């Protein structure tokens, strides 16, 4: 089984070296943020930080407490992610379950409408005006409600529910359960892998969004990613004006701390959720 020729060994050496480099490329940007955020202000200003922290300290993380609006924004993000994902999952379940029943009249038409809307959308401006004109402007509904149904995720869900054996539901029906109870007591528990996958995608969508928040919400309602967006855009404006001023460099530590703290939940939860989405992706490859 194991090929022990010279060529194979050399190939292996290069392969493992290459993969080690890949790991460094993926990990280094985060490590660099860590180094900047834990380095002394003077060390950063004198341009002494290359790879590792210089004059190690955690002041930048303590200064986050004073970062304008950071906690407000973090709280907003947590609220949007929790409520948005919850609402989205409920809508997807209620939509996907009837659509998974091939005997249901009208199912074909609805599925065609779903698929067409994946090809074609009205575009940014009609969407924007619609959300404003139904009165969602400056209300958190603008973030929570319009994006609840994602067509790709819906198709994954429908396909998953179709793979649940009919007999289980028939048995429940003989026991006198209606469709709502079958959905809640039988189908939802059996769909856990698909729900976990879709829930992960949806939560990541809400956690990472700033664009919709920028369009529809006011300053106090903005999520943490909006702070990052402002860091990027302001740094650019400062850069255009005066070639990245000293102040900008001095703030590097706290900016890096903000960036790292904003991704911590994803980094922490990610390893636990990983097994679900790999499974979910293969579920999604079944044709809709």
């Amino acid at each position, binding site marked *: 089984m194991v090929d022990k020729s010279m060529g*194979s060994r050399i*190939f292996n050496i290069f*392969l493992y070296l290459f*993969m080690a480099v890949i*790991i460094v*490329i*993926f990990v280094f*940007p985060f490590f*660099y*943020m860590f180094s*900047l955020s834990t380095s002394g202000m003077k060390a950063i200003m004198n*341009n002494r930080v290359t*790879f590792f922290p210089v004059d190690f300290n955690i002041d930048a993380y303590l200064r986050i407490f004073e970062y304008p609006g950071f906690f407000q924004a973090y709280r907003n993000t947590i609220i949007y992610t929790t409520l948005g994902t919850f609402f989205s999952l409920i*809508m997807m379940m*209620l*939509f996907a379950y*009837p*659509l998974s029943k091939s*005997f249901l*009249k009208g199912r074909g038409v609805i599925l065609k*409408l779903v698929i067409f809307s*994946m*090809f*074609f*959308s*009205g*575009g*940014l*401006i*009609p*969407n924007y*005006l*619609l959300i404003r004109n139904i009165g969602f402007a400056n209300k958190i509904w603008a973030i929570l*409600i319009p*994006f609840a*149904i994602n*067509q790709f995720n819906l198709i994954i869900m429908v396909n998953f529910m179709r793979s649940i054996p009919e007999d289980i539901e028939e048995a429940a029906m003989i026991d006198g359960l209606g*469709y709502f109870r079958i959905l809640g007591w039988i189908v939802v528990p059996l769909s856990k892998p698909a729900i976990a996958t879709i829930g992960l995608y949806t939560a*990541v969508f809400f956690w*990472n969004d*700033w664009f919709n928040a920028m369009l529809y919400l006011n300053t106090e309602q903005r999520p943490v*990613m909006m702070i*990052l*967006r402002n*860091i*990027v855009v302001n*740094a*650019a404006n400062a*850069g*255009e004006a005066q*070639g*990245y001023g000293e102040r900008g460099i001095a703030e*590097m530590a706290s*900016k*890096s701390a903000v*960036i790292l703290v904003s991704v911590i939940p994803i980094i922490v939860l990610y390893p636990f959720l990983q097994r679900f989405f*790999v499974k979910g*992706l293969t579920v999604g*490859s079944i044709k*809709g």
Partner: protein
Amino acid sequence: MKKRSAFRRYWPLYVMLVIPLVHFLLFKYGPMFGAILAFRNYKPGMTFGAEWRGFRYFEIFLKDAQYWRAFRNTIVLSLLNLVINFPGPIIFAILLNELRFKRFKKLVQTISYMPRFMATVVVISIMATMLMPHSGVVNKLMGTNIDYIGNPGYFKWIYVFTDMWQYTGFTAIIYLAAITGINTDLYEAAKIDGANRFKQMLHVTVPGILPTMMVMLILNIGQLLRLGFEKVLLLYRPSNSSASDILDTFTYRLAFEAGSTNYSLAAAAGLFTAVISTVLVISANAVSRKATGESIY
């Protein structure tokens, strides 16, 4: 008679459908009808515009040199991205598959999927820090003082590289799944025929995932006009606009940048892009179905 009993039996399923269906139609099909604004002039508070203007708005932007610059930038950026980031995940998946040490393989996979879950704005802000003039790690190592992001010449490489960093690992999952489906007897037979590992990759693995590659290629071509709008918007600076203004940011600026806010014009530009894009996706999908018998939809 039979119809009625079917409805009596299945009515809870229809009840279930009502709320999600209304939501879906409102938020997905509502904007499609709202796109009629492209042919009507906008008045505040009126989603569908005030009066008909025919194709006037289309004529305005189609005569605009900036629109064509955005069109060219979109195509150039997409093609470059396709040429580099289409083969990337294939090569990565094939090499991953060659890792015999399972735990190391798992580690590489876990790490390489993660950037897919990072916000674009996180990736760009880290990237911008690394590329800072003078003090950024890249300039420091090279001993240079280049403003990479503000320079239009670097823009497309930054775009392509961040895409590679963010999506190579995740896209490779699809190819790894295809590789898992290859019959192991084929490798045994190749070995008996004296094929070394490189030849096995070339003559067994690659042909084995060829159908998947075809589908992915055709679908990527269908997505040519759909670039990462959010990312380009974050990287956009007046100083690099000659390379970084794409169709989506052009439309966005028409609608939201101070001084313009011409919703009808922006809706027209957006609709035009959406129609071309839809034609591209549907034809790519049709080609895929004909050529390989497979399609996503």
